[in-house]
């Protein structure tokens, strides 16, 4: 068993491109669920709006890359409005059911063969990410070393002595952009949440009627939170699509949303850095478990009769599901959350 390799891999992923996607999605969810108390179970659909908005604009309609970004954001906005108008006046669980249904509609429409000439059906689309990677400011031959960070032929390597993190040319760019976005968005979120607007959101979460009696338009505030969270979800979708250089309908399942929730709750809902911390921890745990188990099987520490390689994935997700249940029962505030802030109820 190569523990060094396992830890290096887990650490690499813990701050890597996929983690950033989950962090961004969970930040959007944090605004909706953590601060406003909206149960959006369709965050995957918002990410799909971003990803498909970008891919369709560039591939199918031949628009420039930046137009694709704008269209993706607009699509997420429209979706939030469509979902919000009927449900935000109702009880919280109605929004939950409607968003989960809408997410499934989006996924099934995206994979439908009816218009697969345009959307690629279940194969999805690719070939929209080149303009993004052309923006990389360093060239493929870039080679330098600065303390323990080095770049070799466009690849970034961070050597901590015991562990070494390595990222490919493209992943490095995704991470630069992704971390910049995460920091920017958390910064804006921090300002918003500590503004009067943010206090109204928290008030809505705690007691909608009280806020309404103060003369606030609760519906409008909820809608703003839903739209903004959805837009952040779309940004996560862009990053997701770009990091894989393709979009595929079956990646935007309800499970995708559920993992956003795991990330959010793990880190701590209603905390600015909760989602980021949660995403890092989630990916660290996920990779250490799956890598560790795979290595253990390969090294025959675990005999194949007990666990074969195909069962590692389900086992890891089983453990993560169990972890989620136990976390919510015994530590609903996650790592850095405040327990009192998560006592709100369906009304």
């Amino acid at each position: 068993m190569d523990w060094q390799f396992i830890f290096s891999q887990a650490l690499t992923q813990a701050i890597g491109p996929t983690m950033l996607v989950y962090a961004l999605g969970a930040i959007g969810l944090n605004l909706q669920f953590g601060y406003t108390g909206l149960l959006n179970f369709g965050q995957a659909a918002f990410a799909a709006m971003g990803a498909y908005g970008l891919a369709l604009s560039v591939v199918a309609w031949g628009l420039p890359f930046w137009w694709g970004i704008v269209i993706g954001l607009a699509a997420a906005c429209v979706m939030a409005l469509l979902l919000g108008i009927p449900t935000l006046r109702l009880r919280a669980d109605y929004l939950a059911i409607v968003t989960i249904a809408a997410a499934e509609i989006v996924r099934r429409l995206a994979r439908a063969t009816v218009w697969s000439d345009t959307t690629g059906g279940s194969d999805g689309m690719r070939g929209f990410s080149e303009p993004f990677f052309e923006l990389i400011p360093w060239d493929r031959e870039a080679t330098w070393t600065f303390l323990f960070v080095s770049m070799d032929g466009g690849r970034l390597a961070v050597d901590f002595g015991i562990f070494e993190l390595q990222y490919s040319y493209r992943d490095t760019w995704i991470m630069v952009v992704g971390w910049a976005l995460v920091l920017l968005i958390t910064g804006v979120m921090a300002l918003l949440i500590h503004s009067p607007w943010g206090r109204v959101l928290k008030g809505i979460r705690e007691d909608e009627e009280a806020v309404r009696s103060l003369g606030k338009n609760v519906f409008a505030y909820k809608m703003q939170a839903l739209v903004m969270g959805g837009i952040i979800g779309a940004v996560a979708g862009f990053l997701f699509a770009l990091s894989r250089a393709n979009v595929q309908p079956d990646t935007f399942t309800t499970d995708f949303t559920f993992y956003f929730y795991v990330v959010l709750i793990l880190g701590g809902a209603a905390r600015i850095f909760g989602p980021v911390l949660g995403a890092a921890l989630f990916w660290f745990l996920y990779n250490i478990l799956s890598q560790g188990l795979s290595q253990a099987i390969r090294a025959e520490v675990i005999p194949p009769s007990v666990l074969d390689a195909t069962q590692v994935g389900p086992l890891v997700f089983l453990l993560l599901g169990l972890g989620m249940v136990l976390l919510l029962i015994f530590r609903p505030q996650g790592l850095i959350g405040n327990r009192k802030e998560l006592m709100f109820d369906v009304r």
Partner: protein
Amino acid sequence: MLLSAALAGLLLCLGVSSSATAQEALGVHGTLDDQQDQPVAGVSITVTDAAGTEIATVVTAEDGTWAVPLEAEGDYVVVLDESTLPEGLVVRNCKPRLEVEITSDRTALFPLDAQTDGCTPGESPTAGGESPSSDAGEEPGGEPSSESEDEAAEDAAADEVSEVEGEGGATRAISLLVSGLHFGLMIALAAVGLSMVFGTTGLTNFAHGDLVTFGGVMALLFNVTLGLPVWVAAIAAVVLGAAFGWAQDWGLWSPLRRRGTGLVSMMIISIGVALLIRNATLFFIGGERLRYSDYVGQRPWDFGWLVVTPKEVVTGAIALAVCILVGLALVYTRLGKATRAVADNPSLAASTGIDVNKVVRLVWTIGGALAAMSGVFLSISDGVKFDMGQHLLLLVFAAVVLGGLGTAFGAFVGAMLIGVFVQMSTLVVAPELKYVGALAVLIIIMLTRPQGILGRRERIG
């Protein structure tokens, strides 16, 4: 192999598409390209027939092409030997093994890339020494990549009918109506439990779909593993389903209620439970669709105006009888009345001396049993799959919301309407979009009449 898919989530081109030029020649061929569209040479590809006899092993040419001529039509397995791939390349969708049905000269595609698209490699029977780093950045989850076949299989249940006839719109409509009623009854079995749990505890249980799967899997255990007849296995599964429902309330939900855990937290806990059950199922039975030993390819009764399989009639009749029994019990028995009282107003019910926790326990037990029954019946028609319940769950939600959240009778009516709607909509839309219609109905109901058909306004507040 399908299992790997399950983890991964991506259905990347099942790799097979009919070749456009309809040649008389039979065979399978393709071109291997890497992610930069450069041809990949020297990779060995083996074609075996359905019986496992090797037909030929070829090596890709300089331009990446390969072809295997075949003698007869039928099902073949095309396997790409990953150990012969150049350093750093893997099959992106982790499917180095394709099952293809050959009726003409077909193309088999293996998308190659520097890394997998999130599936877990190393799980196909042939995959041997792929680099350990290839599964590092793996995506959690999602659907099995077998889904297209899978949803095709789901649809097949409905399409069977249409294929049988093809002509005669009215006949087809009748057949679809009947299969819709059957499907509706299956949804109703699951929906009654979900709705009653919601009514009595306020919990929207996202793990209810997995109780359906649980029933199907338990019957599979008794039927296939222990070799009991299907009907015995079905009864055992329903009993175990009841026990599972009881145990869930006893071990999880009831303590949570005592602790005063919020409904939102409970709802998210139920998501965790759903992930837990689903992945446990995947862990034990794998990602493939499994069938019971009996009643698989049953010969349908053909009445001329209606084609229906006996199993559909029997399971439908039992489901209907059970639904009626539950309805009668709710109206006439003491416990049924108590249940409705708790659903109406738990505090008031408690103050009149009803043991609310006992009623809730009963509701969970019955809900678990009915869900398991639904799972068994659905599996008799379509086979067991680890995510069958997850797909049903949204339709169950649609039914429950349509009927009115928290009302048992509403759930039944909603379920029948949704079932018929789903099947009948295939007259107008493509079968793959039939669920979309049902879910759209759900959203429209929310917009216009959020309390549902039989619900009351004050519940939705």
